[in-house]
């Protein structure tokens, strides 16, 4: 298990509205309201997978946490550094706001190329805000490297990465040679919590901030200009209202059967 050579792993992290609170879309621009944000829960699995690849490979292996987003998005990188990532990169530029997956993957691919040679780029299975799952495959396409996506388990042997992937009818075992893009599900591992030592160590780690100019990407390749999709309408669904709550008096099962029959769904 692991690589006999040092590996360089990039973990992609996203700063997203916390799903524990009510999340909103502004009615004018139809964009996500990004207050109360955190590191996307599903990206913790990507960071954990990156740390495990580093720990199972030769000394000198490194994990770089990379994010694209507004000023506060650096907090997603900081959380990854606390978990154990070695360094961070934060791409921030006002022109990026409003990018769809296609434009976002363009920025990420440029940032990955700027960051230098890598062995594995790891993402979560999707962001918890837009939830499209498109970016990993778009990165693989842009970087011209193989993709191993939706991994439920990950193994690195030398320079071969092997995963299991579950779909409805079949499960696959897939493999690819490094460098590769990898996305992991919440079945892949159990993310570690940042401990005191990790939190203290993170304060001394560096986060490099890059703009579009640093990446050689022009403003019309990102944001709404660089996107090919636009949200034209958004409507909040009325909140569900709880109905009748009864306590089982020994005959609640009969009441349940009657309720089901009254729904006329059988």
């Amino acid at each position: 298990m692991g690589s006999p050579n040092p590996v360089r792993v990039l973990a992609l992290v996203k700063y997203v509205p916390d799903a524990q609170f009510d999340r909103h879309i502004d009615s004018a621009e139809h964009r996500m309201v990004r207050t109360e944000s955190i590191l996307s829960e599903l990206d913790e699995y990507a960071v954990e997978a990156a740390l495990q690849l580093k720990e199972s490979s030769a000394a000198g292996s490194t994990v770089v946490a990379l994010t694209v987003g507004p000023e506060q998005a650096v907090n997603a990188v900081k959380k990854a550094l606390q978990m154990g990532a070695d360094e961070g990169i934060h791409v921030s530029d006002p022109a990026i706001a409003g990018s769809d997956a296609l434009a976002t993957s363009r920025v990420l691919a440029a940032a990955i190329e700027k960051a230098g040679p890598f062995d594995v780029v790891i993402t979560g299975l999707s962001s918890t805000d837009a939830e499209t799952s498109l970016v990993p495959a778009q990165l693989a396409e842009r970087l011209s490297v193989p993709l191993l996506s939706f991994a439920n388990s990950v193994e690195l042997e030398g320079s071969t990465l092997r995963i299991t992937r579950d779909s409805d009818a079949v499960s696959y075992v897939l493999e690819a040679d490094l460098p590769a893009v990898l996305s992991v599900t919440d079945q892949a591992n159990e993310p570690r919590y940042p401990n005191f030592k990790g939190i203290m160590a993170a304060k001394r780690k560096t986060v490099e901030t890059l703009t579009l100019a640093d990446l050689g990407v022009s403003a019309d390749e990102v944001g709404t200009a660089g996107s090919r999709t636009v949200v034209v309408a958004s409507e909040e669904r009325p909140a569900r209202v709880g109905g009748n709550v009864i306590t089982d008096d020994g005959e609640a099962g009969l009441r349940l059967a009657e309720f089901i029959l009254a729904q006329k769904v059988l």
Partner: protein
Amino acid sequence: MAFSLVYLDSISSPLSGASLELIAAGRRLGDPVVVSAQPVSDESVAELGAAGVSGVVVPENAGTEAHTNFLTFETQLLAIALSETEASGVVLPNSLNGKEIAARLGVKLNAGVVTDAVDIAEDGTVTKSVLAGAYTTQARVTEGPLIVTLKANSVEYTAPAAAEEPDLLEIPVEDPAPGARVVEVREKAVSGRPDLTAARIVVSGGRGVDGDFTPVEDLADALGAAVGASRAAVDAGWINHDLQVGQTGKTVAPQLYIAAGISGAIQHKAGMQTSRVIVAVNDDPDSPIFEIADLGIVGDLKNVLPQAAAELRKRND
């Protein structure tokens, strides 16, 4: 009228309901042309014609395993078909494979991709549910073809008035990208119960089943329903991950959802709160699931579920 492309993983005879829905969605965007990497029999071509399909595109030597790279071949096939037909849009299934092909195609063609669609209008406006069902949004592409992955059971299929006689076109496809290799494909066991995402009724169990799904399965079978589960039950190893309902599992919207022993964490609600009617059975009266349930029963699911199942069976006789 322009063409639209409909990507089908595999083509069964007779055509599956899922395939017909994708064709129905494609018909809204143009004259549908079906694209598949698998061989298509003459019988299937005729059935596709009856469903309104005007052409079928397959690669030369389809199904001969000439290609080994996972999904990059399918992407290349679609890219060629799109440039040949100048289609206005591509409709794919909203499966993991469908999304991956759609994503790659978006980069290849610099085209817009919309996932998780529940409706497609003739002008190309796509409707989807976002933020765990809290909002419904409509999206369009700003230019170029629309690439869209459509959720199952979203669009209704009706047979067209007149059948088409589609031509079968075999095109040469080279697989250029360095891809992932398929080492092994394992077929999964079939349960005999309805598919979770397609079922009209779902009975789900959570932490409260305490290791024993029998009462949940028993009620499901009395109702001809699918069985689902919360993440807690899956993580405990009581039931297969395939049946997980929620943010990182399946999203379901049945006519009736019965949550047994499920507290109603936000991640679970994300996968089921657009169900038409929700029933919750839980022994904790403070469970948040009761806040969204049309009927809540505070009680032991091990008593309530079997009693309901027995009553339903009795009334059915």
